[in-house]
Each structure stands twice: as C-alpha cells, then as structure tokens.
C-alpha cells in the first residue's frame, strides 16, 4: 500500500507533495503520544520522589507515590490496547521493523557510509532506542510493582527492585531527553508524528522498507546520501 503510494508519487509528484504520504496511522500516533505523555509524567513524579531536595520542597509523598503508581500501571495500556485492537496493522508492522536488524543497522553505529540508506523506515539508532524503551519500561513495571507491594514480597526483593528501578530511571531519563532533542532537530519526522504524513519526495528518499542490497548501484547512492537518518 505504502510502496504503491510512493510509486504514484513518482508520476504525479506535485499532487503528492501537497498531501504527502502516510507514515504513521492514527493507532500508532495515539499509542505514541499517550505513552509519551504518561512516560514524561512518570519521569516528573519519579524525579520528585528520587531527588531529596525536590521531595523536600514538594512534599506530599503519599499523594505523589499514588499518582506515580497509577500512571506507571497505565503506561503499558496504550501499546497493549494498540496491539490487540482492530486497527493494529501498521503498529504491528512497525514493531516487526523495529525488531529486525540488518547489517545496515549495525553499520549505523560504526558510522559507515554506503549501507545506511538501506535501513528502511527506522535506522539502527531508532531501533536501539525503541528496544531500550520497551525493555526498560517492562523492567520498571516489574520492579515498581515489587517496590509498591513489597510486603508480601521478601524485603530483599524490594531492595533489589529499588536498585533496578533507580538505575533504569536514570537510563530512561537520558533516553527520553535524547529522544526529544533528536525529534526536535528533525522537523519532517517530528511533524509526521503529529500529522502521520511525510512529503512524498522525502518518502522517496526514505523508503519504508529496505530494498534488497545489490552491490554497485546501492553503494553509489548510499555514498551520496551519507548517513542520513532514514525514518519518519
């Protein structure tokens, strides 16, 4: 479907530039923004609970703990609902894309030119970020549950869970700030997460799925395009 639209774009370019090409459907955008808002609010309440001087100036620990716990349990709801819902097609396809690493994704980190444009919709950096977010959130959910309901869990579990929760908090904090900074620096991709669409000519240069690698032509094109991020 998307490939078809891109091909149409080659022929009727002027029209296609106006309307653009869909990159993220409504389900994906809803999942992205609800998860994002919940995650940022968790980082805010988590930071208040974690940083002593903030805790002291804000106070009301029990209230903030309750907000944090409820938001935390809600955090996984959007993606679960999205993956189980009827309009899950595009979301499932993108989760599969994020899971599958090809050579070009590893090359992305070695800053090798020549294969990066073969990345498809997501480059290696985005795939790594997505995996860290997903794994980190699951580990946070697990350790958070042990912390909140520590009795009846053994106290040693709560101690371990605190260590895990605190450490991954720092990782997710840096990751989220990084994600926002990179997004803000890429206007086309950022807009696509609001509107769902990218300009057709941009889509042509950043195909959704990697075309199978063949030596000569690809290398040439890759060298010209450099290591430009291939995503929306």
């Amino acid at each position, binding site marked *: 479907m998307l490939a078809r639209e891109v091909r149409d774009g080659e022929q009727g370019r002027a029209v296609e530039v106006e309307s653009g090409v869909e990159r993220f459907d409504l389900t994906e955008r809803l999942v992205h923004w609800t998860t994002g808002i919940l995650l940022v609010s968790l980082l805010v309440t988590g930071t208040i609970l974690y940083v002593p001087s903030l805790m002291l100036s804000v106070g009301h620990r*029990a209230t903030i703990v309750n907000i944090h716990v409820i938001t935390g349990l809600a955090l996984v709801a959007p993606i679960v609902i999205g993956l189980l819902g009827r309009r899950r097609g595009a979301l499932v396809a993108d989760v599969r894309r994020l899971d*599958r690493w090809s050579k070009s994704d590893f090359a992305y980190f070695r800053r090798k030119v020549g294969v990066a444009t073969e990345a498809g919709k997501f480059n290696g950096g985005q795939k790594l970020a997505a995996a860290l977010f997903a794994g980190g959130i*699951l580990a946070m959910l697990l350790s958070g549950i042990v912390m909140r309901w520590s009795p009846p869990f053994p106290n040693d*579990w709560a101690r*371990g869970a605190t260590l895990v929760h605190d450490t991954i908090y720092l990782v997710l904090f840096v990751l989220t700030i990084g994600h926002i900074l990179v997004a803000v620096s890429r206007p086309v991709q950022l807009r696509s997460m609001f509107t769902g669409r990218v300009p057709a000519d941009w889509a042509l240069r950043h195909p959704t799925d990697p075309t199978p690698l063949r030596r000569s032509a690809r290398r040439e094109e890759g060298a010209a395009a450099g290591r430009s991020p291939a995503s929306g």
Partner: protein
Amino acid sequence: MPTTADPNRVTHVGRRTVLGLLGVGVAGIAVGAQVDGAVGGVLTKVSSSLGGLGALLPGADNFRIYTVTGTIPTVDAASYRLVVDGMVERPLSLGLDDLRIRLPRTKLVHYFQCVTGWRVPDVHWEGVRLSAVLDAAGVRKGATALRFFSGDGEYTESLTLSQARLPNVLVADRMIGDDVTPDHGGPVRLYVAPMYGYKSIKWLDRIEVTDRIVPGYWENGGYPVNAWIGG
C-alpha cells in the same frame, strides 16, 4: 563495507534487547540486595564525594527524606514538648531536658530499612526507650496499644503495647552522631528497629495510650500494621 555475506540477513536484536533488559531487571530484583550490600559502602563514598549530585547515585546508602505534607515542620528545641496521654496514670508533657537528663538514656546501632527497599546500614541512634517513657506515665489497666502523632498534623502511627515495650524501640533525639535534624524528624522521632521505616514516625509530639490499634497514615495507604522487617 564488504558485501560478501548476505547483506539482507536479519537478526532479532530488538526482541533480544527487550528480553535482555527484562532479564537484567529480574536478576536485579533477585540478587540486588546482595549487590547493594556489597557495593553500598563504596558507592556511599563516591556519592559523598559528588556533593549534591551524590544523592542521585543508585545503590548508595543514603537516607531519602520523606514528608507526607507540603513542608518539613521546624520545631524550636527549647519549646518542644512530647505529650503522653490517654489511658495513663500521669499524663506527661516532656521537654528535651526531661528526655536527656531525667529519663534513662539508651544507644543502639542498627540499620534503617524503608519498606520500598532502600536501607542505610549502621545508623547510630540515641534516646530514651519507649518503655521507659511509658513507665514514667504509668499505663492503666485495659490499655493495649499506642497511637503516635506527628507535628506535621498528618502523619500518625500505631504500635501494640508489647511491640512498644521491645528494648530496641526508642524515642530518639539523636541520630548519626548529632541532634535529630528537621529533615530526619527532629527534634524528636520514634525509632522502631525491628520494623520498616514508616513505623519510625517523624516529628513525634504526642503518644496516646489506647485500648485498640488505630491504623496509622501509611497503614491506611495499604501497608501492614505489623511492619516486621522481612515478616
């Protein structure tokens, strides 16, 4: 980039990373306490060398300061009073001098364990055994429990009389080698060594002797009334 191998070969790095992180999380929960105990001391040294930022280091043996209201109560030590009333022969109103001079002093070294999982080892505590305070007031027949009130106006706690009479339950006015600071619940707080930290009510200003347990602030929030550590 050599293209001799199949350049289109796909590996499920995403799935492995997610499962790997989840595995690290599970392992951390399982053995984190031992890791925490082993590296906590070192991390505490690193943490204190980092100044203010040191408090952000996971795993360091630092106190985390909690308050359930919007402020930290600041109480003037000279005018501080601890009221002991309810089912007692002689209702008391004790000043800091009463705790420091007229009642028998006790010291103990014991960790502080928060129910959510952080622990500060080898904390020095000093004060008067709660049992000595109760003896000074004289508990009337039929009394079975205590209710504790905090100067913050919100925080309350409870103990049974037999829990309260344990030798490692203190009305503490000194900890970590100094007067108890406002952040730690000074000038006077409770320290219940065998139980989770929320039992050690801060800014203690009243002890009421009752004939039944009235669950305290965190207990109303779902935590156990009998907060034995590890039990």
